[in-house]
C-alpha cells in the first residue's frame, strides 16, 4: 500500500467572462513550476515528476487540467459549442490560474501545445514568470493529418487520436508508460483533441513574436525528443535559433510525451532545465 504525495483540488476562475472549474494537482515546496499538459491529454502526464522526492524537495510542481480536459469540466453551454482552443483563451486561462493560486513568477513548463503557449507567454507576458521550459515546442506545425478525423460520429476519436500519436512515442519508452500515455488520449472527450489541434496546427502568430522574447532575466530552454514526428529536433532548432539567448537540449531516446512516456529518460533533462532557471523570490502560498 502506498499513498502518493500529490494532492488535487479545484479552482474556479473566470475565462472569457465565464467561470471555469479547474482541477489542479501539486506536490513539493520551493520554486513554483507550473506544468502544462499536451493536446488531448491532462495533468496526469506530470505525475512521475510530481512523485519525485528530489525534484519536489526544492520545487513546488503544479499541474492543472485545461477546461474540457481531465477533471476540468467544459464551460456551461458546451453542448452547443464547437470547442476550438485559441491562443487568447489559452493565455487567459494560464494567467487566471497563476492569479488564482497566487503564484509569484513561477517557472512555466509546457509540453507540445503547452510548450507553444509557454513561448507565447514568454513573448507577451515574460515579466510574469521566472523562466520557461518549452518541451516539444516549436513556432508552428502544419497538420500532416486531417484534424476532422478525430471528431466524427462513426468512429471513436480517442482511439484514433491515440493510434495517431503513438507515432510520436519512442521505442525506448517502457510499454506500461507508453500505454498509460495513450490511455489519456483514448479518454479525451469528443472533439477535444481536434479543438486543441486547431490551435496547434493553425495559429501561426508565434512565428513573428519569437524575436521579441527576452531571455536575459527569464531564460528559455527548449527540450525535444528525436522520436518526435510532430515537433522534430529540426523544428525545435529552428525555433530556438529565432529566440535570442534560448538554449536547446535534444533527447536521443525520447518522443513527444517525454515526462509521461519515459519518466526515467526525461528526468535528467528536466532537472538540468530546472537548474537553468533562476530562483524566484519567496513564493506565495
Amino acid at each position, binding site marked *: 500500500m502506498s499513498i502518493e504525495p500529490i494532492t488535487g483540488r479545484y479552482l474556479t476562475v473566470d475565462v472569457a467572462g465565464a467561470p471555469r472549474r479547474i482541477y489542479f494537482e501539486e506536490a513539493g515546496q520551493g520554486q513554483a513550476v507550473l506544468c502544462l499538459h499536451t493536446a488531448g491529454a491532462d495533468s496526469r502526464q506530470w505525475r512521475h515528476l510530481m512523485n519525485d522526492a528530489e525534484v519536489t524537495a526544492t520545487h513546488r510542481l503544479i499541474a492543472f487540467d485545461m477546461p474540457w480536459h481531465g477533471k476540468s469540466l467544459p464551460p456551461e453551454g458546451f453542448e452547443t459549442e464547437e470547442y476550438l482552443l485559441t491562443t487568447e483563451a489559452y493565455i487567459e486561462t494560464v494567467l487566471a490560474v497563476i492569479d488564482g493560486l497566487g503564484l509569484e513568477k513561477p517557472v512555466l513548463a509546457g509540453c507540445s501545445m503547452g510548450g507553444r503557449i509557454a513561448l507565447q507567454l514568454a513573448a507577451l507576458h515574460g515579466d510574469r514568470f521566472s523562466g520557461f521550459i518549452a518541451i516539444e515546442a516549436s513556432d508552428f506545425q502544419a497538420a500532416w*493529418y486531417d484534424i476532422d478525423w478525430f471528431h466524427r460520429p462513426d468512429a471513436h476519436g480517442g482511439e484514433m487520436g491515440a*493510434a495517431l500519436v503513438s*507515432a510520436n512515442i519512442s*521505442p525506448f519508452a517502457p510499454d506500461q508508460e507508453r500505454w498509460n500515455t495513450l490511455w489519456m488520449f483514448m479518454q479525451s472527450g469528443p472533439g477535444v483533441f481536434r479543438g486543441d489541434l486547431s490551435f496547434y496546427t493553425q495559429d501561426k502568430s508565434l512565428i513573428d513574436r519569437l524575436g521579441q522574447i527576452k531571455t536575459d532575466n527569464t531564460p528559455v530552454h527548449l527540450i525535444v525528443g528525436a522520436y518526435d514526428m510532430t515537433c522534430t529536433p529540426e523544428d525545435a532548432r529552428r525555433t530556438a535559433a529565432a529566440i535570442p539567448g534560448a538554449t536547446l537540449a535534444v533527447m536521443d531516446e525520447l518522443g513527444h510525451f517525454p515526462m509521461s512516456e519515459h519518466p526515467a529518460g526525461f528526468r535528467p533533462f528536466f532537472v538540468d532545465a530546472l537548474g537553468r532557471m533562476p530562483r524566484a523570490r519567496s513564493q506565495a502560498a
Partner: protein
Amino acid sequence: MLAIFQDIQARLNDTPHLMRLGRLFSETVLIEIDSEEFYLRFDRGRLVDVTPGPSRKTPWRFALRTDAEALHRFWCARPEPGFHDIFGLVKIGRGRIDGDILCLVKNLRFFKDVMALARHKEGVTA
C-alpha cells in the same frame, strides 16, 4: 518478403487481442515494396491471404508504399527515429500512404500493430 508477410499472417491469426481489435476490418491492403506488390486480404480481423502482385484487377482500400531497406529498419527491435512507425516512414520520406486514409485511421492501431508483428524482439537479430 513474402515469407515475412506470411509470418505476420500466422502471428496475427494466433493473437486473439489483435483479431478482436480488427473485428470490423474486412478489407484488402496493398503493400508495395520497391516495385513488388503484396495484397493483404483481411476478413474480420484475420489475415486470410497474402497474394503477391502485380495485379491490375485486385481492388484495395488503402496502400502503404515503401522500400525494402526502410521496412527492415522498421522491423528492428529498436528502430531509429522515423523508422519506428508507418507514419514516421511517411514523415521522413521513406513511405507513402494512398487510398482511403480515413479507413486506415479508423483501424490505425490494428494496422500498425499488424505491421509491427514482424518486429524483432530485443536481443534477437535474426
